[in-house]
C-alpha cells in the first residue's frame, strides 16, 4: 500500500515550521516538503512571506514577489522561522523571552533526521541520556541519576510542562566555566515542538531558551530546526551554533536507530525506563488530542 499523505486533522490544522528566515534567499522561490506535500515559498526583504503548493511556473531559484503570489497557504514568521499550515491554524504558541532585546536569537541549524517527530520530541525531553550520549558536555558519570521532577498537562495552555528538573552538567553552554547543577524547565506546546529553559551561566535570575521545531516531512522523516535564544555576549554566532550542532550530532544516530520509528502510544508498548514521567505525559497528551500521524495509536 502506498502512503497518501497526512489525514490527521489535528496535525493538518497546526502551524509547522518550514524554513529558517536567516537561511532563505530573499525574493527567491525555494521549496520543501511538509506532511508529504511539496511546497514552494518565498520571503522578501521586508518580511512578507508566501507559501503555496508547488506548481509549475514558480520554479526554485526564480525571482518572486511574495505579495503577488495567489492561491497561497497560511504563512507566518515567528521565532526566526517561516511557518505554514495545510489546514486552519489557530494562534501559534507564545515564547515571550524571544522578544527580550538582549538575547542572541539564532537558527543553530536545520538538519534532516530519519525519525518520526514524536520520537525526536521524546528524546529531547529525556535527561537520562545526557551522561551517556553527551558525555562531558551535558552530563558525566557518575552523575547519572534523574532526580524527581514535576510534570503537568496544563489544560488552559494546552501544553506539557516539566518543572524542577535539575542535572549536573560539565559544560552547560558556551558561557560555562565549569561543571554546575543546572535547572531545567521543559514545555511541549505543540505535538512536534518543544521549548526548554535552562539556567544561564551569566545571569542566575534568567534562563536560556532552546527550542526544537520539527517539520514533519512524512511520518518517519523530519527537518529539525534548532532555535537558540540565549544570553551570551562573548561568543561569535558560529561558536554558539557549533555547540548546539555538536550536541544534536550526538543525538542523531540515537534518534535514527529508534525502533519502531513511530512513537507507540499504548502505555504498555515500551519499558518504563525509556518512557519516564515526561514521556508518559507526552504520550498521554498525544493520545488525548487524537494525534495519529507519526505515532502508533493505542488500541481501543
Amino acid at each position, binding site marked *: 500500500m502506498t502512503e497518501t499523505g497526512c489525514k490527521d486533522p489535528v496535525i493538518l490544522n497546526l502551524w509547522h515550521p518550514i524554513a529558517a528566515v536567516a537561511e532563505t534567499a530573499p525574493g527567491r522561490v525555494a521549496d520543501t516538503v511538509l506532511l508529504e506535500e511539496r511546497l514552494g515559498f518565498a520571503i522578501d526583504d521586508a518580511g512578507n512571506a508566501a507559501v503555496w503548493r508547488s506548481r509549475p511556473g514558480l520554479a526554485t531559484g526564480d525571482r518572486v514577489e511574495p505579495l503577488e503570489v495567489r492561491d497561497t497557504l497560511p504563512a507566518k514568521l515567528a521565532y526566526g522561522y517561516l511557518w505554514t499550515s495545510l489546514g486552519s491554524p489557530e494562534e501559534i504558541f507564545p515564547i515571550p523571552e524571544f522578544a527580550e532585546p538582549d538575547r542572541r536569537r539564532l537558527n543553530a*541549524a536545520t538538519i*534532516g*533526521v530519519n525519525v518520526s517527530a514524536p520520537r525526536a520530541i521524546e528524546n529531547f525531553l529525556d535527561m537520562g541520556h545526557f551522561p551517556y550520549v553527551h558525555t562531558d558536555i551535558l552530563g558525566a558519570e557518575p552523575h547519572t541519576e534523574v532526580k524527581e521532577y514535576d510534570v503537568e498537562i496544563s489544560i488552559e495552555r494546552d501544553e506539557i510542562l516539566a518543572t524542577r528538573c535539575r542535572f549536573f552538567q560539565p559544560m552547560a553552554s558556551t558561557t560555562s566555566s565549569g561543571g554546575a547543577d543546572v535547572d531545567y524547565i521543559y514545555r511541549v506546546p505543540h505535538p512536534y515542538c518543544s521549548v526548554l529553559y535552562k539556567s544561564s551561566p551569566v545571569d542566575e535570575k534568567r534562563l536560556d531558551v532552546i527550542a526544537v521545531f520539527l517539520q514533519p516531512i512524512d511520518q518517519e522523516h523530519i527537518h529539525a530546526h534548532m532555535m537558540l535564544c540565549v544570553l551570551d555576549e562573548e561568543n561569535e554566532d*558560529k*561558536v554558539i551554533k*557549533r555547540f548546539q550542532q*555538536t550536541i544534536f550530532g550526538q543525538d542523531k544516530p540515537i534518534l*535514527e536507530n529508534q525502533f519502531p520509528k513511530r512513537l507507540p502510544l499504548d502505555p504498555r508498548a515500551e519499558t518504563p525506563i525509556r518512557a519516564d514521567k515526561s514521556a508518559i505525559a507526552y504520550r498521554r497528551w498525544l493520545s488525548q488530542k487524537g494525534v495519529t500521524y507519526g505515532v502508533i495509536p493505542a488500541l481501543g
Partner: protein
Amino acid sequence: MITLYDYELSGNCYKLRLLMSILGIEYKTAPVDFYPGREHKSEWFLKLNPLGQIPVIDDDGLVLRDAQAILIYLAAKYDPSGTWYPRGNPALLGKISQWLSFADGITATASAARLHDGLFYALDIDAARAGAHRLFRILDEHLWFGEREDRDWICSAPSPTIADIACFPYVMLSEEGGIPRQDYPAIRRWCDRVKRIKGFTVMSGVFPAGPA
C-alpha cells in the same frame, strides 16, 4: 602552533582531530560555519583554500588543504615512532597513498550521501549510496583477507597507518547517509579496532568502543 580550520560535523576535519589526538599534538581550533553559514565559500576562506573546502591547517605559516595531504604532513613531522607514515618503506608508502586516494572516494560517495540526507545537498542520492556500497565491498573483502593473514589494519604493517585514519570517519558515519554496514562484518571489526587505538577520540555521531 597548528590552527585547524574546523567544522565539528565534518568527517574530513575529524580525520585530523583524530590523528592529532593520537599523536598528542596540541592545536587551536578556528571554527568555520560550514552549515548553515557556508563560510567555507566566503571571501576570507577562499583566500586560504580556493577550492572552498575544509579542512585546512596553518602550521606556523604553512597553509595546507586536503585531509589526506595534512595527514601525511602531520605524521611525517610529528610522529616520533615513524609508524603512521613510515618514510623509509617505499612499498608501504605506495600502499598508503593508494588507500588515501580510496578514502577520498569514500568522501565522494558515503559523505555525499550523508550531506544529502542531513544537510539537504542536491545530488544523485542513489548513485552516492551505490558508489559507497561498491567501495565498502572492496574494503570489507580486503580487511577480511587481512584477518586471515594476521593483518589488523588496512596496510601490511604491525600497527595502524594514516590510511586507517583516512578511511575511518565516513565509514563510521555512513548510516547517516542511509548506508547500513550489516553486510560488512570485517569492516565492523576493523572499526572496533580503530576505536581501541590509544588516544582515540570521538566526534558527534561516533561513539567510543564498548567494553572489550
